């Protein structure tokens, strides 16, 4: 149902099909230009489908792997309240992953395939989750900066041309605000605490600032998928635009905390009404993406272990359902 007629036709039809394909593509683009949403069974160019599967599944993987750095602190949260909040937040991330996998599946890809791509290391996920969380302040910094950057990226995705993705993003954005505020509040408490607590908050900001800026992806000049995604209205703003917006909103928040953003070149530019900031170390970004970040190996191992150790649960649930349905048949 989800495949396109083009795939199943013989060579004789190819010329007609190419002409029809061009007409379909023109009509598709007109719908996108008119801000109509594209729904799962509508005709769409194969490249549009591939782009969405890649983007949505990478996004889903990021949510799932994103549970790990914070999950690290669930057993050591400083109070019972902080612990319950953190559990709720990590559970939300799992939920976001589930919404997104579902959205990707509407494009005709199986969940098991996506999970396998993550576990075999074939699929990518956000570089940010390959950094460690050595202190409690890192949990605060993740909520404030990482979820803050995610919100910046995700709000325009609520208007993405693909209906199921856009609807999943609306749900996710509603929940992300809690994540960001709880993170900032952790930072606020630490920043108002003892000298040691302030130092801990500053060190976390130092660790997470640059990786957070990298979350927006390569600079516009080097971003290979951007132009087409903009035309398809999958993307609404360029990487650099979103990054700038993030810097502009986050620097005053750091000022309020009395913390220093670790960038000697950071300065307010009166003329442009934006902050100027120093160059990003793209080599680090490439390294982390290529699998050589501080925690890449650990993250994937944790996912694989969870998958393997959960196998008996999945098998038991399947067996139980089969037994129940057999009993139901007998009773009838």
């Amino acid at each position, binding site marked *: 149902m989800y495949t396109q007629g083009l795939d199943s036709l013989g060579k004789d039809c190819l010329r007609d099909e190419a002409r029809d394909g061009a007409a379909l593509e023109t009509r598709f683009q007109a719908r996108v230009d008119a801000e109509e949403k594209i729904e799962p069974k509508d005709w769409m160019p194969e490249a549009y489908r591939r782009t969405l599967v890649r983007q949505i599944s990478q996004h889903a993987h990021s949510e799932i792997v994103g549970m790990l750095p914070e999950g690290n602190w669930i057993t050591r949260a400083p109070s019972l309240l902080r612990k319950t909040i953190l559990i709720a937040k990590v559970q939300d991330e799992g939920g976001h992953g589930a919404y997104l996998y579902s959205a990707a*599946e509407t494009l005709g890809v199986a969940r098991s395939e996506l999970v396998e791509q993550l576990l075999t290391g074939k699929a990518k996920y956000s570089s940010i989750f390959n950094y460690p969380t050595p202190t409690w302040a890192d949990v605060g910094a993740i909520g404030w900066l990482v979820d803050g950057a995610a919100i910046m990226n995700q709000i325009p995705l609520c208007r993405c041309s693909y209906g199921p993705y856009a609807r999943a993003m609306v749900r996710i954005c509603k929940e992300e605000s809690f994540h960001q505020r709880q993170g900032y509040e952790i930072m606020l408490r630490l920043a108002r605490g003892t000298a040691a607590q302030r130092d801990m908050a500053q060190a976390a900001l130092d660790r997470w600032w640059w990786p957070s800026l990298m979350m927006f992806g390569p600079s516009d000049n080097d971003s290979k998928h951007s132009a087409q995604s903009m035309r398809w209205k999958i993307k609404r703003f360029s990487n650099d635009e979103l990054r700038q917006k993030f810097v502009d909103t986050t620097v005053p928040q750091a000022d309020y905390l009395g913390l220093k953003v670790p960038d000697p070149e950071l300065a307010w530019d009166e003329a442009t009404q934006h902050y100027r900031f120093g160059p990003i170390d793209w080599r680090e970004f490439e390294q982390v993406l290529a699998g050589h970040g501080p925690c890449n190996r650990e993250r994937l191992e944790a996912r694989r272990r969870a998958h393997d150790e959960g196998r008996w649960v999945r098998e038991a*649930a399947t067996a139980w359902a089969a037994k129940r349905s057999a009993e139901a048949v007998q009773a009838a």
Partner: protein
Amino acid sequence: MNDKQDWPLYEIFIRAKSGLDHKHVGSLHATDARMALEHARDLYTRRQEGVSIWAVRSADIVASDPAESDAFFEPARDKVYRHPTFYDIPDEVKTL
């Protein structure tokens, strides 16, 4: 279970509060109906978004074909007289 074989897909519908329709919110995989309801609760009502859940096997949903939608919905297109605004009524006539 074979890891290559996904559990059946269910479409989830939530009634936000009594008096409202159930509305489609998304889908999930589950081994059976009961698991579908419990997972739907955990996935879609973590913030009290609903008072009632419907779970329907996706395979059981019958849907109209978007490729045929022009022809399928054509019968209603030329019947503007079904709308109240089609009729010109003088302003002096009240409550009509």
